[in-house]
């Protein structure tokens, strides 16, 4: 009965965690692709080889197309129109072209009019250089180089293979980058600030405020207020953020309201980084407060009513009642909410992504959002899966450590009593 759960969790949780760890150790990006690469002597590869192997670099840097017997034989084997071979052999044998396009012009001009696809096929057969050819394996590249007369030592082969490989390679650069880059440090600080402030002000303090104030209300009024404050959580995030945009937009509510006092309209959300933080924290805090509110409310409800009666008879003011009766009994719920929400806040980026996109500048860019931007969503379209995965892995590790602490704090072993039926 547990198999479906185990399979799903394995497929979409454990495997991704493993893959993330693997990707974090690679240079994977849009340019390298995910599934692997080919070996191609590009201008870039030639540049990379120039330092160590100037002769080779010089020798392979130019394209060269030669109409020779070897190519003609191969063309015959292709069994295209026989006229191609006859005409090429008669008119063009021995001709050398310094570029593919010039070779193709000649092929195109054949009387039998090869199609564009055929022209490509034919010109490939006369290619006597390796420049820009995509080799599916490293051996194929080395073979071709040898055919061109480059005898390479094993070390040289390695160098050529490294310089020409287009796919991803294993590397620890991602972590070095994370460790050294001042931008990463900034993002890290942003994240710490965001989590700490939101947690402290809203997820705990404001949630407590809501729970306590609604406790001192008639039940119907209390449930109306609780319902209002649960709205941000159940409202789909896209709409929820939309409402905030409307509130803070330059033609939005705040601007119009302030306009009544002669303040020129502006975009309150993105006007400066203080504003952005202010609203980012409000947006997330309003969502976060509801969980604490409910947890604390039910904890307050669990306090025996007689304790309240007794304290009132003992002459406690409302403040003293909160201070001496309610708060001490909310210690565990507060700890629970703190632990749980720290993790939620660390992982949440949808709200920020939809509201400020990490702006203005990178002012409100937090770790999970930066990982998302790096790996999947940026303007230049250069998706750095490897670096993004490394950033995600940092979060995974932080998440693991925090949740282990969380298990400890909640005396996990007491939660798993042995089953009473033995079979």
């Amino acid at each position: 009965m547990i198999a479906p759960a185990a399979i799903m969790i394995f497929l979409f949780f454990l495997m991704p965690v493993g893959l993330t760890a693997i990707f974090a150790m690679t240079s994977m990006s849009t340019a390298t692709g995910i599934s692997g690469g080919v070996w191609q002597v590009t201008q870039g590869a030639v540049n990379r080889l120039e330092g160590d192997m100037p002769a080779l670099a010089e020798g392979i840097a130019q394209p060269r197309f030669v109409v020779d017997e070897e190519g003609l034989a191969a063309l015959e084997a292709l069994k295209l129109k026989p006229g191609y071979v006859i005409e090429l052999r008669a008119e063009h044998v021995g001709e050398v072209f310094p570029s593919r396009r010039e070779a193709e012009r000649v092929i195109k001009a054949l009387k039998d009019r090869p199609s564009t696809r055929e022209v490509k096929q034919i010109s490939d057969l006369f290619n006597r250089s390796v420049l820009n050819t995509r080799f599916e394996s490293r051996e194929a590249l080395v073979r071709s180089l040898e055919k061109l007369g480059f005898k390479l030592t094993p070390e040289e082969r390695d160098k050529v293979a490294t310089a020409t490989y287009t796919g991803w390679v294993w590397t620890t650069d991602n972590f070095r980058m994370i460790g050294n880059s001042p931008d990463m440090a900034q993002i890290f600080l942003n994240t710490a600030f965001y989590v700490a402030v939101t947690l402290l002000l809203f997820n705990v303090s404001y949630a407590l405020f809501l729970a306590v104030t609604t406790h001192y209300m008639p039940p119907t009024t209390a449930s109306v207020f609780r319902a209002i404050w649960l709205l941000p959580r159940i409202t789909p995030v896209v709409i929820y953020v939309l409402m905030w945009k409307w509130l803070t937009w330059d033609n939005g509510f705040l601007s119009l309201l302030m306009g009544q006092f002669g303040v020129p309209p502006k975009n309150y959300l993105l006007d400066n980084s203080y504003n952005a933080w202010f609203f980012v924290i409000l947006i997330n805090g309003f969502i976060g407060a509801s969980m604490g509110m409910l947890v604390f409310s039910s904890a307050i409800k669990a306090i025996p009513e007689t304790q309240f009666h007794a304290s009132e008879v003992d002459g406690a003011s409302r403040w003293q009642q909160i201070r001496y009766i309610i708060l001490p009994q909310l210690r565990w719920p507060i700890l629970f909410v703190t632990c749980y929400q720290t993790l939620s806040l660390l992982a949440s980026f949808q709200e920020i992504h939809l509201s400020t996109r990490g702006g203005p500048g990178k002012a409100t860019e937090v770790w999970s959002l930066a990982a998302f931007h790096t790996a999947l969503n940026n303007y230049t379209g250069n998706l750095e899966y490897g670096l993004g995965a490394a950033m995600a892995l940092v979060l995974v590790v932080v998440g693991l450590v925090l949740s282990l602490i969380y298990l400890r704090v909640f005396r996990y072993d007491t939660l798993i009593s042995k089953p009473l039926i033995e079979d």
Partner: protein
Amino acid sequence: MSEQSKVSANFSSLPVILLLGLVSLPLVLMYAYLLLDTVSNSEAGSLIPSEFTLEHWSFLWQMKPGKPNIWLVTLNTFIFASCITAVILIVSSMAGYVLSRLNLPARGFFLAGVMVLHAFPSVTLIIAIFIVLQYIGLYNSLVGVILVKSAIDLPLGIWLMKGFYDTVPWEIEMAGIVDGASRFAVWRRLVLPQIKPAIMALGLFSFLTGWSEFILPQVLAPGAHVQVLSVYLASLIADDNNFDFATFKAVGVFYVIPVLILYVFFQKHLMNIYGGGTKG
């Protein structure tokens, strides 16, 4: 919630009501204007609507250029949310039972795993999840993103279900067994009926989170034929060529109505699950 009054006659509740009312005002205003703006136009620079109109709702009968049909999108969203609900309910009610009641090898390990995962920053795994999806050929399909979303919400579901199963008296199950019922029959016919409220709550919760989900479908199923409302609305907002708040809000209201209906009618059940967090 037991709405038993604990309000003491010694303290007046008026000051707290006023205070809370004041801090709740921005939220109330935002929601009020969300509804108001979809059916009205205001003079420029004015906050008070001046005329009633349904023009912002035209997206219901006119296709937006470059956007899929709203009804197709709504249907997708509905399928998406319903399937997630079904998968989570079925899978986590079984797994939760196993973890709560059966002698499973490495049960403690499973439990700890579920607990860790349920607090896990899973969205950050999205790249790797994409690889898995595309490997099994479910990228850009509703099925794929349903499976992913369900899997991500599963640990919470399993943990909650386990918590609810823990409250069912063992003796009911023992009675079932000595009455000769198989363990499966005991689960199906005796235990499951005891946690109906929990199933209701988890079902609602799953439906709502499914209905609201944005990032997963956006990344894993971006195609027009599998678009859901959140992605539709987000792409509408992202398009700064047609910036029209009233229309966004109308789409938003259209999108949020099912949520509000469920919320109004089943608020009690929902509170159940959000409050249920303390159980573990």
